[in-house]
């Protein structure tokens, strides 16, 4: 009792006269601890974030390079493509073309984030606010992640995958495994479900349903139907009806190519099917990240910016550290113009952060324009709720469609450029003015639509009892073709997996 009383006194004392969390640039675990607690205080009680428990791991730069090469996961099966990736990253890093990320964060429960040991204490503060609270909150609350990923199980699953594939290598030889993995990786982007379906009924439910169906048929049976003249329209439609029947049975058309092959390929052995299953599960796990780059980074950046400012206002951060943080913050947010040497697309950090900061502004100090564009939120007194709602219920495409304001379009001086391969000219279709806002916003949102980013390729037909030819169909959008050279190579892989001929129609 006496002890707790003492600590209480100590706490109230520090509350009265705040002490800096740390001084100087080097970090130690004590300072990390103190800072984490201060960051957490703001994140949970001020911003009201909802996060998985955190596990912060300190790693060296070599380990960071390692983590890079296995798509950021702490555990991964072995494959040459990760080696290739590593070699590339290593070269860029060694030559100084590129620095390493300050952190990597994993969508898991507990949420693991890796911080580099080279970071200064100021950077560790920034990184903790950014990853351990910003990204963490987004992972836990965004609907895509909730729907598609299993944060509790991912680490165990990767562990299983790694061991399983190592065991396959042992049993069937590394070459055989490599061949399957190569083919699976080629189809990885087409190994995800894009739309949620009802969960597969359990065996018991299936049986129950079948029994009901039989009972219904028996009950409804009436021999009279047979005598109706056009009940049987004739044999010329037989083949078509067969095809219909067949497609129904195979749940065609099917967009998840990997899944389809895993289930129906006549050529694969069980372990090969299992490997395909693993790859498609991992693809599915990463699918939400692809759709939420702007939001995810925007959310994390907004959160760290808010938290470090709050820390500074409380007098907990030394000025030097604050300057360092601001410097790094503005580096991350730089958005070069389209005709700049450094331009490499729209910076998701910049766009995301700007939009979120703008939402706060619209809530707090709306202009007339904002009231016209965002009647729901303009002047709302709770920007925290508005933002949390956005983080939870949108992905990049819909977020931009909903929240990109004229202010931001003017700030970035966005314009949209139409490129028709039949024309000799690019034409500027809209710019950041009153007539163009909506069109620019629509065009920008479309570029973040995953459905438009990957070609739409589906399995349309296969006759498993006949020639077993797998027929794919590519539905073109705006006349954009599929890259020919890659297509040939992927089809080659597909044929290996399928074992029979594969054709693709456009």
């Amino acid at each position, binding site marked *: 009792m006496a002890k707790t009383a003492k600590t209480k006194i100590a706490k109230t004392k520090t509350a009265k006269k705040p002490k800096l969390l740390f001084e100087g640039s080097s970090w130690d*675990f004590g300072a990390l*601890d103190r800072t984490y607690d201060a960051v*957490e205080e703001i994140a949970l009680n001020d911003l009201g974030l909802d996060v998985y428990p955190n*596990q*912060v*791991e*300190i*790693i*060296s730069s070599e*380990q960071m*390079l390692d983590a890079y090469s*296995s798509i950021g996961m702490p555990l991964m099966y072995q494959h*040459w*493509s*990760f*080696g*290739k990736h590593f*070699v*590339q990253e290593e*070269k860029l890093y*060694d030559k100084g073309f590129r620095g390493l990320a300050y952190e990597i964060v994993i969508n898991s429960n507990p949420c693991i984030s890796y911080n580099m040991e080279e970071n200064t204490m100021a950077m560790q503060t920034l990184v903790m606010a950014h990853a*351990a609270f910003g990204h963490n909150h987004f992972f836990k609350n965004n609907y895509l992640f909730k729907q598609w990923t299993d944060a509790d199980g991912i680490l165990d699953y990767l562990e299983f995958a790694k061991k399983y594939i190592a065991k396959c290598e042992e049993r069937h030889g*590394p070459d055989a495994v*490599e061949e399957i993995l190569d083919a699976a990786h*080629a189809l990885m*982007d087409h190994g995800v479900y894009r739309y949620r379906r009802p969960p597969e009924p359990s065996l018991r439910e299936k049986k129950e349903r079948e029994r009901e169906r039989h009972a219904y048929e028996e009950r409804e049976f009436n021999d009279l139907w047979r005598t109706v003249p056009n009940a049987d329209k004739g044999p010329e439609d037989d083949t078509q009806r067969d095809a219909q029947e067949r497609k129904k049975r195979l749940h065609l058309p099917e967009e998840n190519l990997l899944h389809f092959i895993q289930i129906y390929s006549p050529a694969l052995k069980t372990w090969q099917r299992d490997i395909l299953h693993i790859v498609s599960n991992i693809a599915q796990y990463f699918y939400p990240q692809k759709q939420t780059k702007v939001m995810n980074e925007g959310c994390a950046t907004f959160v760290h910016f808010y938290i470090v400012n709050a820390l500074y206002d409380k007098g907990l951060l030394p000025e030097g550290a604050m300057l360092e943080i601001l410097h790094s913050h503005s580096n991350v947010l730089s*958005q070069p113009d389209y*005709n700049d040497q450094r*331009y490499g697309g*729209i910076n998701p950090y910049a766009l995301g952060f700007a939009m979120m900061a703008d939402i706060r502004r619209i809530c707090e100090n709306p202009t007339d324009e904002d009231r016209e564009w965002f009647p729901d939120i303009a002047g709302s007194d709770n920007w925290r709720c508005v933002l949390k709602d956005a983080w939870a219920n949108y992905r990049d495409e819909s977020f931009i469609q909903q929240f990109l304001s004229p202010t931001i379009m003017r700030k970035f*001086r*966005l*314009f*949209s*450029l*139409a490129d*028709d*391969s039949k024309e*000799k*000219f*690019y034409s*500027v*279709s*809209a*710019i950041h*003015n009153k007539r163009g806002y909506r069109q620019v916003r629509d065009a*920008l949102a479309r*570029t973040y639509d995953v459905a438009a*980013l*990957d*070609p739409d390729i589906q399995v349309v037909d296969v006759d498993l009892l006949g020639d077993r030819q797998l027929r794919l169909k590519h539905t073109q*959008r*705006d006349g*954009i073709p599929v*890259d020919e*050279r*890659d*297509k040939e190579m*992927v089809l080659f*892989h597909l044929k290996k997996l399928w074992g029979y001929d594969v054709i693709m129609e456009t």
Partner: protein
Amino acid sequence: MPHFIDRRLNPKDKSLGNRQRFLKRVRSQVKEAVDKAIQGRNIADADKGETVTIPTKGIAQPTFRHSTSGGYRERVLPGNKEFQAGDKIEKPPAGGGGDGGKEGSDQGEDEDTFVFALSREEFLDLFFEDLELPDLIKNNLKEVISNKYRRAGYSMAGSPSNINVIQTMQRSLGRRLALRRPKEEGIQELQHEIFALEKISEPTIEQWARLKELHETLEELQRKRRVIAYIDPLDVRYNYFQPKPEPNTNAVMFCLMDTSASMGEREKDLAKRFFVLLHLFLKRRYDRIDVIFIRHTHESSEVDEETFFYATESGGTVVSTALVEMQEIVEKRYPPSEWNIYAAQASDGENFSGDSAKCNDLLQSVLMPICQYFAYIEILDEREADIFNDETQGAELWRSYRQVYDEWQNFAMKRISSPADIYPVFRELFAKKDERV
């Protein structure tokens, strides 16, 4: 309460397995690159790591993806300065160009090539691959020379056993002089005087004053002695040792080659591999190796490596001229008492008729007694290799060398037609060497 976990001590190189898989995958292309690198390299630095460029064929990771051209697309760009809706902008001419490809192409890396660095180990592994060396030898060659510690001046820090007394005392003395540390004798003198004065039973006033003054001086001196140490940590110097490869013995390696027109690209490449391998073997034993290149047609000259391998000359073939040249160089620059002399000769077996006897003579009487080892390889066409499969038969030069071979243990000769034939030439050398060592 967060979990902080310190992973820094965990093993790194987690992706070593991935790297090995990757290397295996691109083995044939990398091998090609390594062979090319060896051809373009000096013999002495054959065993450095290498940046290799390989075609991406075979390591492409294809996916179904949209083509970069064709169709209708609309993109949104930031930083508009002068455009209005409806403006038309001319497309840059087809086939890239313009300022479109600002990145990538400058760095000599485009879609079709992939550049990465091999470590020395990996490089040598690939180089040895088709030489068919026994594993033990491979390991010996790859072994890095152990360093010996040599004196390299003095340092302020070190272990007590390395204290350099002279340096330390010199500094101590200098400091004591500069700071005027009172000497022992001066104090003794004072003490004597004080003692003498104190013995006087009734000192005069002057004596009294003098005594007091002496006491004060003595105290002052003693205080100074206490403050100014005899040996200060600042004075201490340690002997400093630095790791250095110790050149215990020197070797000179003579590369002799026929550069007449009959030696083509293939022959020179085989010869080069032969020289590289000998150099590697020697490097293992000697810290300092000079390499001398002597080329010959009907006359011979000492040349640099570039000329040796890449220049072609026309003329006949007189082998003995090279041996004479070698003898002269040895006499002038490499006295056999100080140098281990190795020679490697490559030729296609042709010689001016009558000259071979002279070669035999030169070798037997002059060169063989001073050489550690003399290796001769005759490079054959693959066709010819089948015809000359009898070691005792051959052209004139081969026959006369054969006599040398019978006489001298440190003479090796071999016909080779492919890289795999090179190693056996060295086998004898190492069998013998290892016995002796």
